[in-house]
């Protein structure tokens, strides 16, 4: 068993632990990243249902694909890219299932009728503390997930544009314009909310 190197960086330590299926390190990682992973999935999907399954699947995939992580980039960027792919796959499967098999979709011939109904309360409203946050939660609820996602990754996860582009799989220029657009939309919703009240 190789001994840890004194000059080993944190990401290299994580990579080594993952390659060895070190259960203690995995437990530590779950503790450390669980909140951020849940928050990312909530921003991405906008709903609480399926989040636990997605979180668990994400960690299992982290274990099974451990060999792919070499510790050269931040762990959270890799974690979020895995979670993102699983969330999109899950959403796609649920839509395929509902489109193919739901009696409602057959009888109505209406695809939108089969999409899962949001089980509100909104996770953003539940997470809001204070007046500004409540107003912002309402704005986030209306915001397209593709903007919510990049805003979270840039301003709360503090990822660089390059890191976000790797998570999302889009060019840096697209990411930059999405963040600008997302900020603009939040400001508009905010002002709209302020005018409405």
């Amino acid at each position, binding site marked *: 068993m190789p001994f840890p190197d004194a000059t080993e960086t944190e990401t290299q330590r994580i990579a080594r632990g993952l390659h*060895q*299926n070190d259960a203690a390190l*995995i437990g530590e990682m779950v503790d450390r990243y669980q*909140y951020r992973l*849940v928050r990312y999935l909530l921003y991405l999907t906008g709903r609480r249902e399926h989040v636990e399954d997605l979180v668990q699947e994400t*960690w299992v995939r982290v274990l099974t694909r451990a060999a792919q992580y070499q510790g050269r980039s931040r762990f959270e960027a890799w974690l979020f890219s895995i979670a993102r792919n699983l969330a999109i796959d899950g959403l796609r499967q649920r839509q395929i299932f509902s489109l193919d098999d739901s009696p409602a979709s057959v009888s109505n011939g209406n695809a939108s009728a089969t999409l899962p109904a949001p089980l509100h309360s909104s996770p953003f409203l539940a997470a809001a*503390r204070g007046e500004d*946050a409540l107003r912002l*939660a309402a704005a986030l609820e209306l915001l397209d997930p593709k903007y919510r996602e990049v805003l979270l990754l840039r*301003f709360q996860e503090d990822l660089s544009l390059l890191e976000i582009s790797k998570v999302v799989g889009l060019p840096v220029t697209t990411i930059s314009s999405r963040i600008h657009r997302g900020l603009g939309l939040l400001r508009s919703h905010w002002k709209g909310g302020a005018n409405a009240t």
Partner: protein
Amino acid sequence: MQPDPHQRARFLNDEALVAGISRDDQCWLHSHTDHCAECAAYAELTSRILQGLNSFSFEIEPAMHRRVQNAVTDRAQRLGEMRRYSQIRPWRWALIAATLLILATTPIYRNMRHKQHEAEMGRADTLLLERVDAGVSREIPQAMELLNLPGDVR
């Protein structure tokens, strides 16, 4: 054509947060917002939005956290055991292959030895018979050789 200074200020305000701006642009932006109430309000609103984003506190059920934690660490332990097993497996396969090779070649070797022995015995028997024949022919007393004449039909 000169760009609209307010548009420029708002773009720079956001760009400073998104990717960062040069020192010159920072100086220009500060001097502009110092004198432009609308752009200062724009910057203030953006700042409030980002503070609002950071103030969210999502609750995670402790039970859910425990379930995930247990499931993931169990899986890690199983994968670790499988990994250790797969590390020693090639040696096991080599040992099994060597044993099978020995078991398969032993009867073949024995069979060959047996056939070789039989062939040697056969040659020895032939030689012995030849010698016996030769000995017998020599040992018939001369007085009785007449009895051994061909065509004797008694």
